[in-house]
């Protein structure tokens, strides 16, 4: 056996009989999972306290990487894919999307939001209930920034806690659906679901 063959084999083989397995971790500062739901692919993440920090629509792996980079930067770089840590959140989403639940019983944390976005999203969560709708202008007035409806729209678009913080309930002044992070079809689905199952 000459050196080149030995070198090549050292490169491409390794000792051991069971297949190599990835490492396991009991918990993480940020645990996440990406899951397909009836309204689209969603990345769920929770922090070390168990509070939900993200439920974001991620159409593809690149979109998921953007969310994961933000979590690493703004919460902790110790981000791990730990599906079981998100079981409770996923169960509640499943119930919500099936019309069997109209509010979430989850600790949440708007760590990914700016102070302005927090203001908008917290006001929305506190004032617009299941089956109700609000306009961008109405929400701008509710935060005492009556001329800021565009900024309000941008804040809703950045909502890190889609569906839990119900930005889908905010529509255009004349009843148009306007935009939605998960696409207008998802918004229509959610509003339809809520009008069918509320009251």
């Amino acid at each position, binding site marked *: 056996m000459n050196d080149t063959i*030995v070198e090549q084999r050292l490169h491409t*083989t390794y000792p051991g009989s069971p*297949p190599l*397995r*990835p490492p396991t971790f009991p918990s993480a500062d940020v645990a996440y999972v990406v899951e397909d739901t009836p309204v689209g692919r969603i990345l769920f993440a929770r922090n070390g306290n168990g509070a939900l920090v993200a439920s974001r629509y991620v159409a593809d792996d690149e979109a998921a990487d953007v969310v994961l980079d933000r*979590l*690493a930067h703004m919460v*902790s770089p110790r981000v791990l894919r730990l599906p079981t840590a998100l079981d409770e959140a996923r169960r509640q989403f499943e119930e919500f999307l099936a019309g069997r639940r109209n509010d979430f019983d989850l600790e949440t*944390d708007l760590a990914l939001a700016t102070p302005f976005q927090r203001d908008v999203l917290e006001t929305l969560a506190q004032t617009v209930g299941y089956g109700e709708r609000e306009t961008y202008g109405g929400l701008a007035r509710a935060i005492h920034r009556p001329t800021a409806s565009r900024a309000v729209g941008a804040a809703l678009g950045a909502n890190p806690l889609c569906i839990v913080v119900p930005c889908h309930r905010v529509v255009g002044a004349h009843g148009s659906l306007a935009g939605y992070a998960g696409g207008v079809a998802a918004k229509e689905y959610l509003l339809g679901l809520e009008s069918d199952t509320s009251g």
Partner: protein
Amino acid sequence: MLEALDSHPSPRRRSTGVNLPPFQRLVDAHWRDVGRLARALAGPVDGDDVAQQAWTQAYAAYPGLTSAQNLRGWLLTITHRCAMDLHRSRGRRAVPTDDEAVLAGVAAVDGPEMSPHLLVDEDLWGRVARLPERQREAVVLKYVGDLDHPAIAELLGTTPTMSRRLVSDGLKNLRESA
């Protein structure tokens, strides 16, 4: 849920000011290399424990890193250190040389997770395990870890020239023991 929105302020940004990628990205990119290196250094039986221990240590230390450069090298360094710690704690008998069961444990590894070009070579790795300790470490770091001689020299506490020498002597021994 509404009042809970602000009740759990998350830990604020790290103090090191480095933009570290999500740890899972390191795991996905490097778990095979860490696992191979651990098995090559500590043997097929202890190797998997060494790899797991290395990942646990890496996870603990990760937020304190002051640079996001060469994270693979950082992981392999931790793996090497864990293997050497085990080696020392076992009174320098960590690497099995005559244990038939261990050497025979070099068999089918093409699990669903393994990349197809990684094969098993029972004979070769048995001979690697019987190399003198420094040669074995240098050969493994060079060909499994893909590290260059300056990096190997640092891990072995020697010079790049000596690292080159150890690798070439190791290859010579492997060739002659074939």
